[in-house]
């Protein structure tokens, strides 16, 4: 199964710059880039206000469920999911095969405006992901430096 490339600082810097640009233009509250499996890649905006780890996992699952619905109505893909709230709304938009963009914005802000600015962000993020994919694999971090002996008890149970 194809997977995300290893991401280096340059990638994250480019993602953050694209997200910050989106937040400035759209006046959205927070924006995140997610892997479709539910992993959070990076986040910008009001990062302490929400639990992004959980929000990301749920948003990725919601998007995946929507893709299931799309196929039931003979659509290849619903490219985005919009949830309207009383205080905050949420837009989840497809970026590429592996990634999603999630934007949280105040409910007074028009979803049309957020979508409009998000399209630029999406193409910036997709371009950076392609660049990361094309990078020489040898440049990646070598996991063999991890000391496997240390993993004997990664998770320890509380003593009774």
């Amino acid at each position, binding site marked *: 199964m194809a997977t995300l490339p290893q991401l280096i*600082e340059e990638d994250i810097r480019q993602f953050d710059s694209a997200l910050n640009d989106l937040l400035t233009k759209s006046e959205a509250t927070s924006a995140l880039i997610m892997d479709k499996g539910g*992993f959070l*890649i990076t986040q910008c905006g009001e990062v302490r206000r929400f639990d992004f780890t*959980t929000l990301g996992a749920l948003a990725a*699952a919601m998007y995946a469920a929507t893709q299931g619905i799309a196929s039931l109505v003979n659509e290849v893909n619903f490219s985005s999911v919009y949830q309207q709230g009383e205080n905050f709304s949420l837009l989840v938009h497809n970026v590429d095969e592996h990634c999603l963009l999630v934007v949280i914005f105040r409910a007074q802000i028009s979803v049309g405006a957020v979508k409009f600015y998000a399209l630029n962000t999406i193409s910036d993020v997709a371009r950076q992901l392609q660049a990361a994919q094309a990078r020489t694999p040898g440049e990646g971090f070598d996991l063999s430096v991890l*000391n496997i002996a240390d993993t004997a008890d990664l998770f320890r149970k509380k003593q009774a």
Partner: protein
Amino acid sequence: MAIINQATKELQVKIVYYGPAMGGKTTNLVKVHENLQTAQEKGKLVSLATSSDRTLFFDFLPIEAVAIKGFKTKFQLYTVPGQVIYNTTRQLVLRGVDGIVFVADSQYEKMQENVESFANLEDNLRTLKMNLGDIPYVLQYNKRDLPTIAPVEYMEFLLNNRDVQVPSFSASASKCDGVFETLNMITRMLLHKFINESGRKSA
């Protein structure tokens, strides 16, 4: 698939607890959440369940392992709904899985459901163009504290009878027995896999 983020020095890994309905998948996550030593970072346990506490979509628990050589390892634990009708949902949760814990119910009358659920896991992975042979997984024989249980040897014969045998654990998840042993084994197997793959790539 796991994510390696060198900017934040993070490795993110997805583990899915799979198995028949009412086998104790959610209980495993609840016990990990309750009993994890406080020094380790754990997130909130999220359960998307029906009013009768049956998993509807999935349960989700993010936990963070102690840093290994400066690299943070974040594990996302998911369960799938066990009931047969929720198969589409199980496929969604399996997307991007790195490791699997198959939680079998040790009661005699559940043996058929165990076998069916295991076959269903293989089917669903095939649908996602994945193969159980390529994914680290462990077996957990749960509910060993109940009176009408099948011998471990019999369960091994039913569920661990493939070319390569995988580690299996007896457990009573409700008492937290075997829960951490299972989790630590799957995490160890996953890290070994990443290290081996990384070694092959750089060779």
